[in-house]
């Protein structure tokens, strides 16, 4: 539930969408990404952190540098409008499973 909301929250921000577009064509370091924006570097870092946390971006160690690249699988999931519907049922069924497991041990 939280994860799904976070992905949409991540996508609701125009700067974060711009970052995704930028990284979509090539993987870049945080510095290279920040140089494309007028925003302060820590603000860009925060955006990168959010995008990484909700798995839209992935970090890859490249020598001494960390490159950000797009997680195509996750992007595809979000683009697929059925995915939130599936998530909704998955959340419900996960809840059902944990509630009934607890119910079983209480008996």
């Amino acid at each position, binding site marked *: 539930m939280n994860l799904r*909301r976070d992905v949409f929250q991540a996508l*609701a921000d125009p700067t974060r969408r711009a970052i995704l577009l930028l990284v979509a064509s090539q993987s870049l370091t945080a510095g290279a990404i920040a140089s494309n924006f007028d925003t302060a570097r820590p603000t860009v870092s925060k955006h990168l952190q959010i995008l990484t946390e909700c798995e839209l971006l992935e970090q890859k160690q490249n020598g001494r540098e960390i490159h950000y690249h797009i997680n195509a699988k996750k992007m595809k999931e979000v683009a697929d409008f059925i995915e939130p*519907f*599936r998530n909704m049922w998955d959340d419900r069924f996960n*809840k059902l499973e944990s509630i*009934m497991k607890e119910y079983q041990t209480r008996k």
Partner: protein
Amino acid sequence: MERKTKVTAEDGKHDILIIREFDLPLDLLFKAYAEPELVEQWMGTKVLKLESKKHGSWEFETTDAKGNVAMRASGVIHEFIPNQKIIRTFEMANTPFGVQLEITEFEKLSDDTSKINMHVIYESVAQRDQLLKLPFAYGINMAHNRMEELLKTLK
């Protein structure tokens, strides 16, 4: 995390299939559908009425954080065979989505595992597609509302 719930919605059709396997014995899985207090817990809704029997009826109500009614849904139960099958109708009040027919089959896989096969049939392809998009639209709205609230606190 492994994706356990499968949803199949073919283009241009007015039905969907939802399949899920559970680490639960069959009788416990079925109980989660039959007992009102258990349904309330996993569906996150208030159960106003749930007559778990053939020709029984049901009514759920979901309220938002302020206690306002956010959604009311109801229907009738056409078939109720313990540990096997529930056939019911589902309709959300004050929405253009029409009535849907839900055929839920319960299956034993082993002593500790079981499976649900849910076949949902909508009145039209358009209504099915609209309903499928609801959680997607909700996700976007949630994001926007949160952003708006955040902006308000910054002023």
